[in-house]
């Protein structure tokens, strides 16, 4: 992976963060922290790894992406808009009556959203189903899903973890956005889920533990996942909730609140300066 490509990806993530913050400030409602923690992951997926065609979202050859932590819809919408699924102008309709950009992703309305999510713990089962369908068809398509760390408290996740390993779904790769916070506080305090990597390993998955904000590590991990045979892959991404500005980083209150005018201005300044580095 050459440095120029990595730089382009990092800059894309920076611009996606800017649009996420503008969008959330405009809507006054939505999930800031978990969108910003997953931005580098989403950028690596849509601008490096996924086989997809924004002009033809139903293309048979596409890889499937499922945002299991559906509340991070702002990062999904912004990434899809940047990728060309729809115009970035539409981002300002977030959460408004009649908008395709529902509070949580709705596949009935928005091209590029494979399945509606929002109720946690369900996306991995769906991903397993899509992966099974591709296996039946002997098709090379791959399936990716992003899960939250708090989401791992849902029992259905571990039912699906068994299914994926049992059916040897090596065409399935999940990325856990391990930002350590959930609505009520630190995940470790609300209901501990560590050791996350060991849990997936114990369930028969191939596991990588990486820095989820390091583009080089993300890209390498996604490449490696494709080489794993007979086992699904879990990439546990250590992330910071609210990543991108000191205003939001590590602050639990930004799970479900949006930036004020001042916070937006400060954050945009930080993100603008980040380009020079």
């Amino acid at each position, binding site marked *: 992976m050459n440095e120029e490509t990595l730089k382009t990806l990092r800059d894309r993530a920076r611009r996606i963060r800017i649009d996420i913050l503008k969008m959330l400030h405009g809507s006054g409602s939505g999930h800031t922290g978990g969108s910003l923690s997953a931005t580098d992951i989403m950028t690596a997926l849509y601008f490096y790894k996924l086989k997809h065609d924004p002009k033809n979202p139903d293309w048979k050859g596409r890889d*499937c992406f499922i945002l299991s932590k559906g509340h991070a819809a702002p990062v999904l919408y912004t990434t899809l808009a940047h990728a060309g699924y729809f115009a970035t102008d539409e981002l300002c309709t977030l959460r408004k009556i009649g908008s395709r950009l529902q509070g949580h992703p*709705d*596949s*009935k309305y928005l091209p590029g959203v*494979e*399945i*509606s*999510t*929002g*109720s946690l713990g*369900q*996306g*991995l*089962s*769906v*991903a*397993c*189903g*899509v*992966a*099974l*369908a*591709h296996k*039946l*068809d002997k098709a090379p398509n791959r399936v990716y899903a992003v899960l939250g760390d708090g989401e791992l408290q849902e*029992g*259905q996740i571990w*039912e*699906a973890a*068994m*299914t994926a390993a*049992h*059916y040897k779904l090596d065409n399935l790769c999940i990325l856990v956005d391990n930002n350590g916070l959930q609505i009520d506080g630190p995940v470790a305090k609300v209901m501990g889920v560590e050791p996350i990597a060991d849990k997936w390993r114990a369930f028969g998955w191939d596991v990588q533990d990486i820095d989820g904000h390091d583009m080089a590590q993300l890209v390498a991990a996604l490449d490696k996942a494709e080489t794993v045979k007979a086992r699904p892959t879990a990439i546990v991404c250590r992330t910071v909730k609210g990543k991108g500005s000191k205003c939001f980083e590590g602050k639990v209150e930004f799970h479900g609140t949006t930036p004020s005018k001042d916070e937006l201005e400060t954050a945009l300044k930080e993100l603008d300066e980040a380009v020079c580095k």
Partner: protein
Amino acid sequence: MSQPQQKIATRDAYGDALVALGKKRDDVVVLDADLSGSTKTSKFAKAYPDRFFNIGIAEQDMMGTAAGLAIGGKLPFASTFAVFATGRAWEQIRQSVCYPNLNVKVVASHAGVTVGEDGGSHQSLEDVAVMRVIPNMTVIVPADGPETQQAIEAVAEYKGPCYVRVGRNKVPTICPENYRFKIGKAHVFHEGKDVCIIATGLMVAEALKARDLLKAEGIDAGVINMSTIKPLDNDAVIAAAKRCGAIVTAEEHSIIGGLGGAVAEALSESAPAPLVRIGTRDQFGTSGDPDGLLKHYKLSAEDIREGAKEAVKKKKR
């Protein structure tokens, strides 16, 4: 009354229908949650092992996996006992199947008190109610083996989420040979004049028996097989109310939210008429032999007869 020519459990008819469907269409896939021997999906598993997925005792994951298979272009049938399919995995059916409006067929067996000896934990008396309330969901309760076979063919052709309820025990074949099942269309066995019995599932056979009992008492009772609970055939309900002036519903399910609830809604909005609902009355099931339980919960032909007489009396008031 039609003479029962044969008896077959609707779950067996389901298993056979799946095998036939699997032969016709290679996109058909079947999922089960460790009850394939009981739901009869084992017949499909034997015929098409590559297209059968046992998900283990994990109903929630099964519904999500079925949704994913539908996204991947398959036609998934997901089966387990009714109480687990619609209770344990209700929110998965709502969020991952009905909300995105995916082409998943949930076919659940062992519904109602005729599960028998396993008792109340296993006797689903609420499934129709909790499936009916979810937008996009179609709800079907076939009355006999041949109708089950036709219903499975029909849901395979229909695009969208469907719930089909089948039973454990053998039931008499009652639908006429030339009968063709259509989603949303009731079958009128007898029009009747004095009261009309609208029944579903195995209670249609009881309703036909009740009609004979009522005839002996000089009451001309109509009998309608309402095999699709949603969308309800409102026209058939309204026509029956206008024709007979009194309605009895009969179902092996709670009178709250099921066929009785659906008919009550239709009647009170469009054609108010006296109504008596035969079904379980805000209670759980219990262990026992299936036939004994039908009598215990007042779900026999005699109970329908009494209900019909009560409805006629209400009409005259």
